[in-house]
């Protein structure tokens, strides 16, 4: 009996080899696809060293990326932190691509490799493939090709125009990255593969149709100006526009084509990462829930030993720990803990609902198909909508959540709502709002510009709750916008409701970019 039991183990001890990884993968795949009904991209698991993990950290996890000093800076920070033992490295990095690439560290123990494969190669992978935001905004098939294109394009620009010139554009583009995304679907979906083709074709077309004679033609006198109405002018420029990078790429009067292309590259990459920022809780929750289910199942079927399971539990509880607000370790709400807690809670509601659950979640309470509900949740929600729909009173009580209001006009902080009958909905609404990027990112829009006149670019920051911009940073970013735009830029911080102006920043361009 004990012999058979021994034989069922996928691995013994802490060491792993490639055979063990293959066995583990196959075992996990059976559970993930069979029992959990996950739907994943093909997997590619890459074993890397700590050094390579540091490299990957520096280029925001992507396997290939263009060169920029800021990545060198991040590398230096991580490296010195890691060498001094101040920080550990992640066990894995997973990339939303098709095939889905997961990097696993060589020093992980066999148990950790199992955990990582369950977490990344199945949990995250399923989420990437199915969540509506990822489907809408990212192109898993094309991303690696596009990064390759971006890398070679930027290095060609560096050869041609010099590192400094390219660096200035990249600096500015990076500073505007958070304001370089489309928040709503536009007419045409971005397809990264065709982006690259388009750029290539355009260049070929230019080369083919090049005729030096055109240069010698006498130019006609300027076309008579038609006086556009303000309204029409703004409409033509698609104003107001909250995607500042997009606006600069399309409308900045003095940029060279290659500078526009670089802005475009950074914008595309920002857009690619946009869904990740909105689904942190869900993404981690999904992956954590999956690995928990899979590891438990592996243990139940005696494919991993008790020791390995305990090692897993130790690491799992570390990850999903939520310190309370008065704990010295408290650093905000842990997305792993919240996500995992809510996923488990949904499972409970489906299988063992209370009367309260039936009242709050009549659709799913007691339906008994927890995985079906969860898969639907993972497909159709983002953090903000997920929390506002599925945070249950029971979980709020368990976490003892409360809402604290900090209004500078009041002498004291006010407890706005707590985990009680009157407070559930308000706490839930307040919490879900914190995960709304539209709420947490400052709302800055290109308001107006008179291209025929002084070309002064006017930006508005719609101030929410009287929270102004960080002054020093705003001034620096504004300077970068001015350099790209080529003319003066003014940023007005406007009270959203009344239209009152709190503050104005003005910046004049340095003539360095041209």
């Amino acid at each position: 009996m004990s012999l058979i039991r021994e034989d069922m183990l996928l691995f013994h001890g802490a060491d792993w080899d490639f055979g063990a990884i293959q066995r583990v993968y196959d075992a996990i795949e059976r559970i993930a696809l069979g029992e959990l009904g996950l739907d994943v991209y093909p997997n590619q698991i890459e074993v890397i060293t700590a050094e390579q993990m540091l490299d990957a950290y520096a280029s925001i996890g992507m396997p290939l990326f263009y060169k920029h000093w800021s990545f060198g800076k991040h590398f230096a920070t991580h490296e010195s932190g890691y060498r001094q033992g101040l920080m550990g490295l992640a066990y894995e990095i997973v990339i939303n691509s098709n095939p889905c690439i997961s990097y696993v560290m060589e020093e992980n123990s066999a148990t950790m490799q199992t955990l990582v494969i369950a977490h990344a190669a199945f949990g995250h992978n399923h989420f990437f493939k199915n969540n509506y935001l990822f489907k809408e905004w990212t192109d898993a098939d094309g991303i690696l090709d596009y990064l390759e294109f971006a890398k070679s394009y930027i290095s060609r620009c560096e050869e041609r125009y010099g590192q400094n010139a390219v660096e200035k554009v990249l600096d500015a583009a990076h500073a505007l990255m958070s304001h370089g995304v489309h928040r709503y679907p536009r007419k045409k979906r971005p397809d990264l593969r065709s982006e690259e083709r388009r750029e290539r074709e355009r260049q070929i077309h230019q080369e083919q149709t090049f005729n030096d004679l055109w240069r010698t033609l006498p130019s006609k006198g300027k076309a008579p100006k038609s006086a556009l109405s303000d309204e029409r002018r703004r409409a033509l420029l698609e104003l107001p526009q909250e995607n500042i990078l997009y606006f600069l790429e399309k409308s900045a009067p003095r940029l060279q084509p290659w500078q526009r292309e670089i802005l475009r590259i950074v914008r595309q990459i920002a857009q690619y990462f946009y869904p990740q920022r909105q689904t942190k809780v869900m993404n981690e929750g999904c992956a954590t829930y999956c690995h928990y289910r899979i590891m438990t199942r592996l243990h139940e079927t005696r494919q991993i030993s008790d020791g390995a399971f305990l090692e897993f539990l130790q690491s799992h509880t570390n990850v999903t720990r939520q310190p309370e607000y008065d704990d010295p370790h408290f650093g905000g709400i842990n997305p792993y803990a919240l996500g995992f807690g809510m996923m488990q809670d949904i499972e409970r509601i489906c299988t063992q609902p209370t009367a309260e659950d039936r009242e709050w979640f009549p659709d799913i309470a007691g339906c008994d198909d927890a995985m079906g509900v969860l898969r639907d949740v993972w497909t159709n929600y983002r953090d903000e909508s997920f929390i506002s729909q599925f945070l249950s009173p029971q979980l709020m009580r368990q976490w003892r959540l409360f809402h604290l209001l900090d209004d500078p006009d009041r002498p004291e902080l006010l407890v706005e709502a707590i985990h009680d009958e009157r407070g559930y909905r308000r706490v839930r609404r307040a919490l879900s709002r914190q995960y709304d990027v539209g709420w947490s990112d400052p709302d800055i829009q290109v308001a107006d510009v008179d291209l025929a006149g002084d070309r002064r670019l006017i930006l508005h920051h719609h101030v929410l709750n009287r929270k102004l911009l960080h002054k020093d940073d705003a001034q620096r970013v504004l300077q970068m916008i001015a350099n790209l735009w080529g003319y003066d830029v003014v940023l007005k911080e406007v009270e959203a409701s009344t239209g009152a102006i709190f503050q104005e920043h003005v910046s004049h361009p340095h003539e360095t970019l041209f």
Partner: protein
Amino acid sequence: MYIIDRRLNPGGKSLANRQRFLRRAKAQIQRAVRQTAGERDITDLERGGEVTIPADGVREPSFRRSGEGGVNDHILPGNKRFVEGDTIDRPPGGGGGGSSAGNSGEGEDDFRFALSREEFIDLFLEDLELPDLAKRRLATVEVQGMRRAGYSVTGSPVNLALLRSMRNALSRRIAMRRPKPGDLLKLEEEIAFLEKDGESDKLLELRQKLEELQQRTRRFPYIDPLDLRYRRFEPVSRPVAQAVMFCLMDVSGSMTEHMKDLAKRFYMLLYIFLTRRYKHVEIVFIRHTHEAKEVDEDTFFHSPETGGTVVSSALREMERIVTERYPPENWNIYAAQASDGDNSPNDGATSATLLRDVILPACQYYAYLEVGSDHDRMQAGFINHKTALWQTYETLQDDGSNIAMRKVNHRREIYPVFRELFRRRDAVEAKIP
């Protein structure tokens, strides 16, 4: 599913980014390096290590809300006693309950990171430059070397170009229609076959043909001295950057261990510096009392010696070595002299003449370091008394010679003095013919 082992992939993917980062923050890093170097022992200089630069220069700004002001909502776990409507005194410091909005970014702290040894030294020396480094001598100093230059028909056997020789032999054999061994063999077989049937005209013809071919084979050898080719080398002269560094030191009884230590540190700095600038650097140690001798490093620093002090003896020794081994047209000569300033009274004029007429014209640079004891600095109230040697050299310096002199009492002063002695001086350049 694929498992790919990437561990053997070349690392250092971030190297290019790191170089860009260093270039970007160069000014600040340099300042930090200079400061670090001041605090460190000179023996540690070659080690590299951690530097701290203000985060300001490498900030990555973005539009973000400032952490303070405005209405903030906090949703916190772990309520123990609050009910709705409770008010809480603001915690001191104005922060919110528990955490601020959490988007304070990377903070305003200084930015710490580690430099490699190479990077450290390069930056350390970056803003120094030896005064006459660009002297035309550097460009014209040449050394003879050999370079491959095609093939020749003569040469030594070690340089035999086998491939080329065999190729020549092959083309010669084809051109001369040397019979192939296969053809001969075939012919012989045919003859042997015919011989079985007895004599015939055909056989006779074939035998004659074979005879002809064999003769031809003998006449045209498989390989001929004509075919041989040798790799040819030709001498080239290439500019060489080589330097010799003379360390001169007074080792008479008046020099204490402390003073020698100071001198040693100075020499080490100079050595590090020269090795960065020149491919090849040699060091000559000359110690002197009333007579001078070239010694090895260990003896130079550690072996005790007694006697009087005659500086000109060391200068003579240096002159001798220069003429013997380091002709100034081939070598960049640097000299650094360390002394406590004593000299026998009747030697001053001799030393001055020697320096002015012989040593200084041959040298790129001559540094005189006067080392004092630690407690010298206590006597700050006294008028700085000038030593004999100092007075001698001062007259030379006033004449505008390329001699630099400084006084050092403590080892923390070494580095600043070094910097000062060797900083760029573009203005002085014109003086040297």
